[in-house]
Structure formats: structure tokens, C-alpha cells
């Protein structure tokens, strides 16, 4: 197979929304059988470029060539017809249908009578999975499967439609470690069969692991396209961010000895359902406590219990030494807690509301004048938050839905830090966030702890966890199995071993 053959080429693509240029003269070329990483900061235009290839948006100018021939892609159907498939960031499956029904949705195999032949669909779905060398029951209802299988079903769906180019937009964001490994194995196999993969990710290690070449976009322009063997990670990061980043991702011993400070939050024997079992720990002011564990180990559930979203079956929470009745988020907020939730689109933001309205939602009391809200005060407060957290917005009145992922996350952070909490709980705070913003967020976490606030960080990315945590609790099946001071953890490897319980 000839790997230098061009599968898809996009030539001087430009695209603007309401007069604002998002892509400028971008050239992008993918060869058959290669994994091509598409990198760039939040809002650089990666998703927009891919949506053009996918027929979701139409380009303002420029051309798309598939196999050397110019094509018009005006809809997702057009894209499918020329062999371009996408694994959506937000899944496009119908949960109430089976795997096979989803795979052939809209292209159901029909019998001679013209009725849908479900048996045939199941058989062909099996074939696709066999080619992918993975085991999934085509008759299972999608809603009963885990996220990893949703993704595999999405991939199978694209393959069943004879996709030659697969676009994956941050596919590992919601995958556990071993699921990521399985996905990468699958990518390798697809590659061997000549299928090209466009891979969007903010995780540098993943890019190096599977990609052959990389294209970096910055502010809607192509910065470079290189073979990965020819660029260093430092060059890539600098290309994405536009400047050097040093030291943010390594642990910095902070001045104060947090453990000797007064405890601000104490959990005693917290138990809730099956996911939080007899959890006890102490959190001091000025301390950053990391929670490590596999998917489903109960980290998120523990955060939800602390914030009063899930009820406690037994155990108690003490704030500054006195028992707190945290039975709902309102009480948690009153007790000085804030939770940056795991899923910002569903739990953190009202997507159709403006950036300003989202920022002010927990702060309405601050801008109230008598029974009314003071619009001018609200503008001032929200503008100052936008400035302080360097949120990149066209205008604060625009819906937050239009922001890129990283900027949405900054809005969630800004919204909660505006409440000036004493204890901040962050659940996967850098998911989908670019490397520049990530280092900003990590610096912000340290800064907060330095001002005496206590922080709990949940993260599946070990480098990030190790970069900020003064202490790490390892959770497994809802209970704490290890408690490690930062200096007891030599490196990522040893944390990973601790998490796996070795």
C-alpha cells in the first residue's frame, strides 16, 4: 500500500461567522493510511475545519479534494458518500436502539419485501466488529453500554458506511486508561488497512503515541505540518500556545506547610450508595489534595456527596470543626464550598444563555439592589471576571455555546471563583482544555491554595495531578486505599501502580 498517496486535501479554506474570520487560508492534507494529528489552542479552529470536511458547515472559499478529485461537501450525507466519517465529540447515537440498529441507521438492509431485515443488520454489524477485532454484541441496547462502547459503535457505524477517512475529535476525553489503550490498538489496525485518521487531541503524549504527522493551527491559520519524528514536544507546545511554557506541569513545593494548618474540612466515614464507602479524610487550608483512581472508583461521587448533590447514608462532614448539614448545593455554597463539575456542558453551564448570565448565576445576591438586579453592577462584575480569567469572548452577551471548549471551562471556573469559596472541588478541571490554558488553570489552583483556600482536584491525567497535589488519596471501589504525601510518589509510574492497587 502506498502511504504517500493523498486521501483528502483541503486547499486554502477560509471560514467566518458573522464577519469574524475563524479560518484563514488553511491548507490541510491527509495521506491514506496515516494518523494525522490536528493540534491547536482552544478556539484555534480545529473543530470548525473538521466540520467543514464533514459537511456541517460550508467553506467560504477554498476547495476540498478527495483522492485527487475536487468534491462538493454540502451535507453529512455528501461527506459519507465520499468516504469521510466522524466520531463525534457529542455522540450521535440513539440510546434506545440497539448497536446494530444504530450502525445502519438510515441505511438499513432491506429484504425483498422492502421491510427492514434486522437479522442481516446484526450479521453485518458482527462482520464490522470482527474486522475491528473487538467484541461487541450488536443486539445490545446502546443505553446499556459504557462510553467506550459508544465510541466503538460510532467507529463501526462509520466503517460500515465504507469510510476511508475517520475524524476523531478528542476521542479519549471520557475513556479510562485501558479503554484508551484498546482504542489506540484499533487505530493501528485501521491504519494498516489504509484508513486515514484525523486525530484531534490536547494530550501531547497521545499525539506522540499514535500520530505520524501533525498540523498545528493557531488563530485560524496553519502554522506547520510536520512529521512527528521531526518536531520536539517543546516545539509543538510553543507552536500551539505561541510562547514557551516552563515548569507549570512539574510539581512546585509551595512555601507553607499545609498539613500543620488548621483543618478546614473533615470527612468522617462518608457513605453514600455503593460508590462512596466509609471515606474519611482531612483537608487543611492552603492545601491541594489530589484524588486518584480509575473510572468508577467513586471520585466524582465523593465530590457530589461533599457538595450535597447525592445524599449521605452515614457519616458526617465538619467545616472548621463544626458539623455541617450539607444536604443540598445551597447549603454547600453557604458553607463555603464550590464544585467545578465534571461535565461542563451539562452540569456547569446553561449553554444557550450568554457568558454574562452564566457568570452571574451564582452571584445574583451580589448584584441585587433591593428586589431588583442592578444591570450595571452585573456588567461590571462579569467583565472583571472575564478579564481576570482571560476568557476569550467576542462579546459577553453572546451565548456561551459559541465558545470553544477551553473557554467554556474558564467560564465555569470564573463563575465559581466569583463566589470566593474556602474549599474548591475541581472534577477534571482541564478536560478538553488546551495546553496553554491548562498551565494557566494549574497556576490558578496553586495561587488559590497560596491564599489559604483548600482545593480538592480530581483528575485522570497523572502528570497534572502530580503537578499540583500536595497529597494524593487513591480511591478504589468507593474507598480510600492509599494516602500518599507528594514526596512519597516518585513519578507517574508509581502513582499508576498505586491506583491499580499493585
Amino acid at each position: 500500500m502506498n502511504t504517500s498517496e493523498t486521501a483528502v486535501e483541503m486547499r486554502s479554506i477560509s471560514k467566518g461567522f458573522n464577519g469574524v474570520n475563524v479560518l484563514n487560508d488553511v491548507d490541510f492534507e491527509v495521506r491514506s493510511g496515516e494518523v494525522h494529528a490536528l493540534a491547536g489552542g482552544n478556539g484555534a479552529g480545529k473543530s470548525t475545519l473538521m466540520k467543514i470536511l464533514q459537511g456541517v458547515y460550508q467553506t467560504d472559499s477554498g476547495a476540498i479534494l478527495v483522492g485527487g478529485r475536487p468534491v462538493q461537501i454540502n451535507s453529512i450525507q455528501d461527506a459519507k458518500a465520499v468516504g469521510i466519517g466522524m466520531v463525534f465529540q457529542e455522540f450521535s447515537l440513539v440510546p434506545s436502539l440497539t448497536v446494530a440498529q444504530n450502525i445502519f441507521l438510515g441505511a438499513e438492509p432491506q429484504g425483498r419485501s422492502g421491510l427492514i431485515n434486522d437479522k442481516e443488520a446484526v450479521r453485518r454489524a458482527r462482520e464490522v466488529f470482527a474486522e475491528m477485532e473487538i467484541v461487541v454484541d450488536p443486539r445490545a441496547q446502546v443505553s446499556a453500554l459504557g462510553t467506550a462502547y459508544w465510541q466503538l459503535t460510532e467507529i463501526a457505524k462509520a466503517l460500515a458506511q465504507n469510510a476511508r477517512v475517520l475524524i476523531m475529535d478528542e476521542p479519549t476525553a471520557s475513556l479510562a486508561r485501558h479503554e484508551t489503550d484498546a482504542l489506540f490498538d484499533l487505530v493501528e489496525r485501521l491504519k494498516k488497512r489504509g484508513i486515514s485518521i484525523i486525530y484531534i487531541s490536547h494530550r501531547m503524549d497521545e499525539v506522540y503515541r499514535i500520530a505520524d504527522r501533525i498540523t498545528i493551527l493557531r488563530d485560524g491559520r496553519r502554522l506547520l505540518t510536520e512529521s512527528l519524528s521531526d518536531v520536539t514536544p517543546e516545539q509543538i507546545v510553543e507552536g500551539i500556545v505561541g510562547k514557551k511554557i516552563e515548569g507549570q506541569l512539574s510539581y512546585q513545593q509551595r512555601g507553607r506547610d499545609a498539613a500543620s494548618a488548621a483543618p478546614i474540612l473533615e470527612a468522617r466515614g462518608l457513605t453514600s450508595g455503593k460508590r462512596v464507602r466509609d471515606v474519611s479524610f482531612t483537608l487543611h487550608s492552603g492545601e491541594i489534595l489530589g484524588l486518584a483512581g480509575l473510572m468508577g472508583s467513586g471520585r466524582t461521587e465523593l465530590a457530589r456527596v461533599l457538595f450535597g448533590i447525592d445524599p449521605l447514608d452515614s457519616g458526617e462532614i465538619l467545616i472548621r470543626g463544626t458539623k455541617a448539614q450539607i444536604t443540598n448545593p445551597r447549603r454547600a455554597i453557604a458553607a463555603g464550598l464550590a464544585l467545578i463539575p465534571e461535565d461542563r456542558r451539562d452540569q456547569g453551564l446553561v449553554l444557550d444563555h450568554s457568558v454574562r448570565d452564566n457568570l452571574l448565576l451564582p452571584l445574583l445576591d451580589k448584584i441585587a439592589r433591593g428586589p431588583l438586579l442592578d444591570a450595571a453592577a452585573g456588567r461590571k462584575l462579569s467583565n472583571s471576571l472575564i478579564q481576570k480569567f482571560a476568557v476569550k469572548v467576542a462579546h459577553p452577551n453572546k451565548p456561551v455555546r459559541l465558545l470553544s471548549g477551553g473557554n467554556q471551562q474558564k467560564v465555569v471556573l470564573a463563575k465559581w471563583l466569583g463566589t470566593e469559596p474556602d474549599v474548591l472541588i475541581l472534577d477534571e478541571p482541564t478536560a478538553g482544555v488546551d495546553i496553554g490554558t491548562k498551565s494557566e488553570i494549574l497556576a490558578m489552583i496553586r495561587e488559590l491554595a497560596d491564599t489559604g483556600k483548600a482545593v480538592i482536584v480530581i483528575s485522570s491525567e497523572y502528570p497534572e495531578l502530580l503537578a499540583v497535589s500536595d497529597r494524593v488519596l487513591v480511591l478504589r471501589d468507593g474507598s480510600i486505599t492509599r494516602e500518599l504525601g507528594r514526596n512519597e510518589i516518585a513519578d507517574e509510574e508509581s502513582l499508576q501502580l498505586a491506583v491499580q492497587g499493585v
Partner: protein
Amino acid sequence: MNNRTISTIAPEPGGLAAVRGWFGELDWRRYVIYIGFVVVFAFFAVLLRDQGFLSPNNLLNIFRQTATITVIAVGMTYVIACAEIDLSVGSTAGLSSVCTAMALSQWGIIPGILAGLAVGLVVGSVNGALVSLLGIPSFLVTLGMLGIAVGVAQWITASAPQPILNDTFNMIFGSGNFGPVPGLLVWSAVFVAIGAVVLSRTKFGRQVLATGGNRTAADFTGINTKRIKFQVLLISGLVASVAGMLYAGRLESGRFQWGAGDELSAIAAVILGGTSLFGGAGSVVGTLFGALLIGLINNGLILAGLDSSQQQVVRGAIIILAVALARKK
């Protein structure tokens, strides 16, 4: 941490470019109701010149006839903005008119008014409690309540109209004027004004919109969304009961048929006014114009001499057209 050199906020617009930018961004779909209102008004003004469409009396009549719908629709705006629906408003108005009339003839004006409000309080609380505490969809709860309220009203009156002979009551609720201004106009103005300010300028209003826009995020932000859902249904019930008293005052009687079918007109007015059927966005002033547009159409079609079956067809077509134009693309 914020040493990045990006401009974070677009400069406040100024000058000519700003004007162009402003118009460029102006989303005309949001103003369809106002444009539609003006267009329909102008159309009737020309076409029905000789039928007296523009006479002050006819214009006041339009206001008078839409007043109760407007009032009901103000409450409905809250319910729909909160991503719920209230189908029981029409029959609540009917039940309220009946209870007011009966209590009034027994015990006098104040107990009469209180009886009417009590109907709204009870219906709204029951709706609210079932929706927010038991989590039953409001569509089902209020559909059931629609039947119950109208049934009770018919039952306790044995289907007979309950005349109201108290002139003070009739004056205040509907028949009378405040100076040169018809009382009904004042009522709807008061409800629209309060409704608009509360929805857009108070904490409660913001929380209603947030709950309707994304309930999970609202919960995570510490908003008591159960209470918000309860409150909007309570408001809707109370407002509907006041509308019932306006029927009673204007028509000088309580009757179970008063308000029948109003839920549909109110929902149409709210949606025409730009409130999202899926919650999260709402405008009370838009609702007012939605109600007025419906009133305008009714009035114009009558003056044009269409019979009631033709009126219904044309009205339905215009509503679908307006909503189609106003929808997000």
C-alpha cells in the same frame, strides 16, 4: 496566570462601524412578533378602513377582548420559560369565576375575591407539588387538572350561570373605567409590567430562566429548581384565577365555560412572543404583543365579515406562519 496578551473583551462599540455591526448582529427573528404586529395592523388599517377598524372604540375593544388572555399568558410565560406547560389555566379561570360569584352572593365582595384567589392557590399548589415533588410531567398533571377544575365548576353550579349583582366588583374587575381608561386595560398593563420586570430584572426571574435552560446546571449552581418549578405553576394558577375574576366582572356572572380554550390562546401568545417552547428564554413584553396580535386578528376577521369557522382557519394559519418565521434556524 493572566499574562496572555489576548484582548479579552471586544471594545464597547462606538462610531459608524459599531452601528453597522449592531445591525449586522441584529437577529430579526427575535423581532418577528413586533414586525408581524405592525404588518397585520397596517394591513387591517387599510383593508378595513371603512369598517371602523381604526376607530378609538374598536381599538379599545381589541384591548378589552385580549385582556384576560394577556393576563393568563403572562403567567404562562413563566411556566414555559421554565420548560413546563400549564394546560389548566382556562378551566382554573372558569372555576375561579364560579367560586367568586358564589362566595360573593353569600358573604360579600372581599370573601368573593378571596374565594377566587383560593382557587388559583389550590390549583397552582397541587399542580406545582405534583410536578416538582413527584416529578410527574406538567403536561399530564395540568391536563388532568384541566378536566378536574372544569368538572368541579360545572358540578357545584349544576351548570347554571351564577349572576353577580355587586356593582363594585363588576366595576373593578372589568366593566368599569379608571378615568378614561378601561379597567381591563389597566389590569393587563399592571400584570405585564410586573411580569416583565420580575422576569428580566430579579433573581427569581433569572433562576426561572436558568432552570428552564438547563436544570442540571441550575441544580449544580445551588438553585432550588424544585421550588422554582413549584413557584411558576403556583404563579400561573394564581394569575389564571385573577383572569377568571376579570371574566366574572366583565360578564357580570360566574360560569364554568368562562376561559374554556384559553390555554391554547395563551400558549400561542407566549410562543409568538418569542419565549422558547423548550424553556430558557422568555419575554413578557413579547407575550403582550403575541396576545395583541391574536386579538387583532380575531377583531379584523370579524370586521371583515368572516364567519367563525373561517376565522379559525385563518387564525390558525397566521399563527403557524408567525411561529415558523420566528423559529431558530
